[in-house]
Structures are given as structure tokens and as C-alpha cells.
């Protein structure tokens, strides 16, 4: 069945360092992947997305890498700041041409930035 999992439930990073959050997905038919950030008491916030026809996509201080061969997704955050402390979720859409219609989320990784 569809499942999205994360390798590490918690991650602590020194402020200013780079962080990498990993995610494994099981549905090879997924063609759309998204990273969300959720702060305490708030709904998830979109960070960056990537389509399956790409291997890498960059945003402001963030980079998403997609390895379809091993069904692996990662989020790199450069020069981490205290405001980056949150729970990070990856999500997949479960099939080609589904768009954002039926997203499956992972269980999340809690990122803590150490001052």
C-alpha cells in the first residue's frame, strides 16, 4: 500500500549549520512530492515541491532532492536559523496525474536548532 516514512524522527542541528531531512516513499507511481513545515499550534506550511521529472529543485535556503531509483526524497536547509525549528513532513500524491488531490504524509521529523 501507499506509505511515506522518514528515517529519523528527531534531528538537532547547530544554528548556522546545514540540515538534511530524509524521507522514503513506497509508491513508485507518485509523480509529485512536497515538503511541509509545521510549527506548534499551526497548520502545515508549504516549503517546496518537486515533480517526478526533476531530480533537484532549489528555493530560498532549501533544496529538495528526489532519487526515484531508490524512492528517496530529502530536504536540505542551508544556514539553519532558530525559526527553522519545527516538524517537517514529506508528502506524495500516490499516482500520476493525481496532482494534489490525495496526498499521503509521512509521520514527520522534528528539527531542533541549537543556538
Amino acid at each position, binding site marked *: 500500500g501507499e506509505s*511515506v516514512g522518514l528515517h529519523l524522527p528527531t534531528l538537532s542541528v547547530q544554528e548556522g549549520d546545514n540540515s538534511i531531512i530524509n524521507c522514503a516513499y513506497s509508491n513508485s507511481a507518485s509523480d*509529485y512530492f*512536497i515538503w*511541509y513545515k509545521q510549527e506548534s*499550534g*499551526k*497548520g*502545515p*506550511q*508549504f516549503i517546496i*515541491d518537486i*515533480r517526478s521529472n526533476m531530480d533537484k529543485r532549489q528555493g530560498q535556503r532549501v533544496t529538495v532532492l528526489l532519487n526515484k531509483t531508490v524512492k528517496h526524497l530529502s530536504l536540505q536547509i542551508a544556514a539553519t536559523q532558530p525559526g527553522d525549528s519545527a516538524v517537517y*513532513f514529506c*508528502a506524495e500524491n500516490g499516482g500520476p*496525474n*493525481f*496532482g*494534489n*488531490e*490525495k*496526498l*499521503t*504524509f*509521512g*509521520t*514527520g521529523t522534528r528539527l531542533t536548532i541549537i543556538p
Partner: protein
Amino acid sequence: DAGVTQSPTHLIKTRGQQVTLRCSPKSGHDTVSWYQQALGQGPQFIFQYYEEEERQRGNFPDRFSGHQFPNYSSELNVNALLLGDSALYLCASSWTSGGASYNEQFFGPGTRLTVL
């Protein structure tokens, strides 16, 4: 421009009761998705509404139903509440530009439902 809004913020019900949660999408958005997020877990997709119809549905029983109004706002109804329905219910909106939408979903702050 207001983002996605949800009401109420918190709700306490007892087993067997029924509940209705409401969502107003972000201005310009026509598609609403609902998710259930248990404590310490990722959101689980319940269903998505577009053009006032349920377009996709996750693995949730028929006790979970929804509706989308002509103004694109939406309701989530849960009947015969169980203790396990206690969770944060999230609404997300986006716009669909014909066919499948790969547009960003914006989430509301959620409604915290507690079933006693």
C-alpha cells in the same frame, strides 16, 4: 487577504454525538481538502472537494462526510463519534486550473476535536 480559516478552534464532544467543522478557503481558491492529524502523526487525507463534489477520498468510513458550497467554503461532518476521532482536523485550499491540480495547498490552523 485572509488565509484559510477554520471554525471552531476547539471542540469537545462525547461518544456517539455528531460534529460539523467549517472551512473557508483562501481567496481565489476553489478546492478544499480535509485531513485528520492525530497527536504526533502526519496528516491523513480524508477527502477533497472541487466544484461542490467529492473528487477524491481517503480510507475513512462513511461516518465522515462533507460538503462544498457555491462560495467554495466547506464542511466536514462526523457522525457517531468515537474516542479515536479525537484529533486535529485540518482544512487545506488550493485552486485547480483544469484537470489535475499541482498547485500549492494552503492549510488552516485546524480544529482540535476532543471526544470524551
